[in-house]
């Protein structure tokens, strides 16, 4: 659906984005993750046709953003980030603004009211439809920005920092909203907040200083950064640490095994070295030795840690 190839953007000699490539399949949610000033907004602005790329190409639904900007713009809904929340016409009422946008997007007159109401319902702004946008709280402004992007059912949604400036409850609501919209729509969102991306996106591209430092699914990314998952197993009763180490040592593809006794339980920390899922083997071995597993969890590196590792590597 979205195809970005070797995209670069320079402002004079200043590099904003260099050689970034990624693809997004239909129905996926891609998260562009990076610190402030990493080039996320620039990438989005190129995708939406606001900026011309210096090099490389970007295609949305098969249309090149430079050659067929109008065709691209017809297929996207874009929520941009302004200085104070999304840039909207603050002097207009919610409804008249949405009506204006629907007209610009070429919604036929008879469908306009319906499409506006659908967008307002999805974003939960029906009860403020006659209020002046400038007087709404930032959470509502953000929703109006989102509603505006949803008008005319775009195939692709491009959301720049969709949860910026919201309180925790609103953040959860907006996230849920975005998740609900995936499937039929393809979504790209940007954020510098990691849990947000981790929770909403199925694919993550990490950008730092204008270049792509990693691209993967959320789980893959965590695993790569650590070089393997570690699994924590808690066994009932006090087992002989040496026995446990010996038995578990028989499993192939296992790294280090650490055994400790904690409060009447035997805690085993196993580091995986290969790609194979070791949890099944861990279970079978336990059954064979008549150990009772009370708890087993695979702990992967949190996105925060992965992110720090990936972005600080360059500087060292």
């Amino acid at each position, binding site marked *: 659906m979205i195809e970005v190839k070797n995209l670069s953007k320079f402002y004079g000699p200043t590099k904003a984005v260099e050689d970034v490539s990624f693809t997004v399949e239909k129905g996926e949610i891609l998260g562009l993750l990076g610190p402030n000033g990493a080039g996320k907004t620039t990438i989005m*602005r190129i995708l*939406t*046709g*606001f*900026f*011309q790329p210096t090099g490389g190409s970007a295609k949305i639904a098969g249309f090149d953003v430079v050659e067929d900007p*109008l065709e691209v*713009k*017809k297929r*996207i809904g*874009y929520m*941009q980030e*302004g*200085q104070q929340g999304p*840039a*909207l*016409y*603050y*002097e*207009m009422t919610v409804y*008249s603004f949405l009506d*204006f*946008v629907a*007209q*610009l*997007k*070429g919604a036929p007159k008879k469908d306009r009211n319906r499409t506006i109401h659908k967008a307002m319902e999805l974003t939960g702004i029906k009860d403020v439809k006659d209020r002046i946008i400038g007087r709404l709280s930032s959470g509502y402004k953000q929703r109006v920005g989102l509603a505006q992007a949803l008008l005319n059912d775009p195939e692709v949604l491009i959301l720049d920092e969709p949860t910026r400036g919201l309180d925790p409850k609103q953040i959860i609501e907006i996230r849920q909203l975005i998740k609900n919209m995936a499937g039929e729509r393809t979504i790209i969102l940007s954020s510098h907040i990691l849990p947000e991306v981790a929770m909403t996106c199925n694919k993550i591209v990490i950008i730092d200083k204008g270049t792509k430092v990693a691209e993967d699914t959320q789980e893959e990314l965590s695993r790569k950064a650590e070089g393997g998952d570690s699994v924590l197993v808690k066994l009932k009763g006090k087992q002989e640490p040496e026995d446990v180490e010996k038995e578990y040592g028989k499993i192939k593809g296992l790294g280090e095994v650490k055994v400790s006794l904690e409060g009447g339980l035997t805690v085993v920390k196993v580091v995986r070295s290969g790609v194979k899922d070791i949890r099944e083997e861990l279970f079978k071995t336990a059954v064979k030795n008549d150990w009772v597993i009370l708890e087993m969890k695979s702990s992967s590196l949190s996105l925060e840690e992965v992110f720090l590792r990936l972005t600080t590597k360059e500087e060292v």
Partner: protein
Amino acid sequence: MNKALIIARRELKSYFVSPVAYVIIGMFLLISGFMYYSILFQSRVAEVRGFLMNMCFVFMLMSPILSMRLLSEEKKLGTIEFLFTSPITVTDIVIGKYLGSIFLYLVTTVFFLQYPLYLLLFATPDMGPVFTCVLGFILNGAACLAIGLFASSLSENQLISAVVGMVTLIFFWIIGWMVDIVPGGIGNFLGSLSLIKPLDNLSKGVISASDIFYYASLIFFFLFITVKRLEWKRW
């Protein structure tokens, strides 16, 4: 073109949401009323000619205030990005913005029409020149707004846009003097750029193709470079 009208309509509405339109139209009426009264009272001639020239000059000074926000404000608030990412062309945006300000100007013109009507009530003016005077008022305003729109595309600071627009307009007004200062073809060429000469012709009741062409090309030129300016900014 349809999309341009959508933008124009929004633009016209937003003039009336803020006090801008009311203040400008109100001030304009105040000055024009006083001028009309004093000019007519002194000359006692049933024509609007002298009045027209004065009003065009006043509007020339005021028009940058009308046009300064057209693009500067959008740039400052970031809403220009919103327009640029909508499925419309830059030409649509520029024409829409321009038409929006023209519509407001036409609202002002409706008030302006009252003055010839007073003449009709108390005298029998020659309606030919009155008609061309109204035409001149409209064309001069349209030219001023085109220049102001371009000035507005230059900066995100409305004050700078207004000042640049005003200086450019004054330049186009006084460049007519060059005919007397610079001899020969250059002087004539510079003189032909002036806003005064075609306005003067129209106020006398003369409609010539070259004057209409002058206004059309001036407006086209400034709208064209506004489009180019907006496109260039994003490269």
